[in-house]
């Protein structure tokens, strides 16, 4: 079955471009130009993924996101403009799966969309299943990590951090999400922990720690564990 993607975007030319690009990749494309349109569509049937532009003429894209999240875990990729990092973070913390910043290349959008669809499927899988991402292999049950077949000794915190990102490989994970899942709810403001642990993880996992290929920073938003096709 080809997945249906709901594109919620007020600019008609952009909608047309997305329809063509996604259609060429074999996706079904549903379109909505306003929040109202989108609500009507979602009320009838749910798509497999949603592309959501935050700046809608008849309301906040964030509200729409909350409505969607109340009903389902359908992957949502945010489309936003540069300089709206705060909105991106807010959307991600409110359940969006990833974001792309306008203007974006088609390849970038497709990578984000694929990652979002894949992690939605992975979410359904049992939690202690082995996770493989490129050269990395995580064994949650043994709490061990293999890089190119060799075990890498990680501290418990380092492992938890890597595991959270690996579960959502290819997607950006916000500082708040990482802090909440690794350290707990009362540490969500302490980004300095993250900085320090990320340094350590890079030193242990990156081939060349001065040019990271696995753990990618997105300034002001969070971190992304690069997956082979993203």
């Amino acid at each position, binding site marked *: 079955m080809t997945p249906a993607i709901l594109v919620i975007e007020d*600019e008609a*030319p*952009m909608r*047309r*471009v*997305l329809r*063509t*690009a996604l259609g*060429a990749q074999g996706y079904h494309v549903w379109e909505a130009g306003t929040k109202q349109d989108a609500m009507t569509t979602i009320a009838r049937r749910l798509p497999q993924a949603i592309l959501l532009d935050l700046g809608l003429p008849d309301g906040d894209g964030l509200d729409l996101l909350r409505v969607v999240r109340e009903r389902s875990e359908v992957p949502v990729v945010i489309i936003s*403009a*540069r*300089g709206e*990092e*705060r909105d991106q973070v807010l959307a991600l913390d409110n359940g969006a799966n990833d974001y792309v910043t*306008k*203007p*974006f*290349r*088609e*390849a970038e*959008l497709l990578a984000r969309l694929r990652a979002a669809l894949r992690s939605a499927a992975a979410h359904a899988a049992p939690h202690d299943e082995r996770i493989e991402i490129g050269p990395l292999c995580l064994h949650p049950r043994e709490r061990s990590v293999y890089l190119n077949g060799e075990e890498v000794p990680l*501290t*418990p*915190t380092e492992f938890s951090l890597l595991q959270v990102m690996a579960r959502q490989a290819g997607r950006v994970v916000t*500082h708040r999400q990482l802090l909440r899942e690794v*350290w707990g709810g009362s540490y969500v403001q302490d*980004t*300095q*922990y993250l*900085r*320090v*642990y*990320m*340094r*350590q993880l890079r*030193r242990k996992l990156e081939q060349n720690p*001065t*040019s*990271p290929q696995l753990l*990618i*920073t*997105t*300034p*002001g938003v969070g971190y992304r564990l690069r997956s082979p096709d993203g």
Partner: protein
Amino acid sequence: MCAARLSDERVNSRLRAAFGRAFPERVGFVWGALTNLVTTTIAFWVAPHAQLAHLMIIHLLGAVLISTRYEMAVSTFTAVTGVLAFDYFCIPPVFAFAMPDPHYMVSFAGMLLVALLVCWLNQGLRYQRAVARASEERTQALCQLSLDLSQVTGTEQLFVHAQRHLRELFGEHTELKFTQAEAPKAAGFRSQPIRDRRELFGYILVEQAKLASERTERTLLLAASADRIADASKRLVMGEATRRAEVHAEMERNRSALLSAVSHDMKTPLASIMTAGTSLLSSSWQKDATTRELLETIVQESERMNAQITNLLSVTRLESGCAIINKEVEALDDLVFAVLSRFSGRLSGRQVNVDIPGDLPLVSVDPVLIDQLLANLLENALRYTPGDSPLEIRGTPSGSGIAVEICDRGPGISLAERDRVFEKFYRGQAAKHNDGGTGLGLTICRAVVRAHGGSIDILARTGGGTRVRFTLPLDTGPAITHLRLEKRHEA
């Protein structure tokens, strides 16, 4: 008596100054003589029926009356001649100055003393009244002047009102001039500068004759008037400055709003163009080399245009103070890697050395702004240096913060240009006209660094090339180090 006369003269000169006219002294003596004539006549007439005390009172009355109108000399003259006339006409033997009883001597001396005392007190009273009246006139004149000047709204109006007041106070020949120059010297005229503690606004020329002498009521009035005019001038100058600042701020706001709207409207179609272009490039239909090249041009140029609009918008926001700085605790290496991975395509074939020690303190900065700063510096290094020359990015602790250096092996920037390249729209000598630069990159860098309380400089590099160095203060408490964290959370 001598002291009394001296003070008398001083008082008279003040009174003269206060009233602006000389006292008619001779008339006073005539009046004194006439008064004595009248009192003596009355005393002579009533003498047979009255006691000595009554006659003395009548004479005293004359001297006291005179002292209410005239100065001390006249009063003294009246008192002394009165006593003599009394002795001559009223004391037996009549029509002689002879004094049969030494008791009379005591009475006369007492009478004279009382007369002089009363005259002297009267003198003081009159003087004080004159001073009070003069000061009241001055206050009134100044109040009127202040009131008038407080309502003026322009320099022209200020001049007209002040000139009118000054001429009313100091005569038709009074001249007011608003100028930064010193007052010209003119015979018979006195100049009074109009100034506050810092600034000279102009001067007033007043006829010397209208002022009497130094330190008189009139001179004080002139100085006070000049002060009021200086206050009003200052108020106008400051009001003008405030108005100009308001207009400027309003213009800035409009400019920002316009640029923000325009850039949004330009970026929206650009986003469609770029996605469409990349979509065509990756689509499955067969493309010859030319088509591919043209499509790549569309994508690259829309990317470039987007970068330029972003820069323009950033510089406007940063300069107008509209930019909001969202500080977060960041690691420099994190930010550098993020930029490097974005530039990875263009960096291939170059050697990039990143030297950031693992224990470099964390800094509290706006990650998005610092990202843009690093991207602009890297963009410059890539654009103006040979494609195979190495780049170096270094981070070091510096004072109470960190210093970051981005070094290249390009042609370098001449000493004369090192400051100018930070100016808006300035393009360095090395910049080619069609290289895609806007002359805004370094302007944004400086604005970002300054917004964080740091500084940015271009330095020479030994062995050739450019070294851009900027500093960022720590801003938040002591750096949190690796070891302390491990202990706290994993022990």
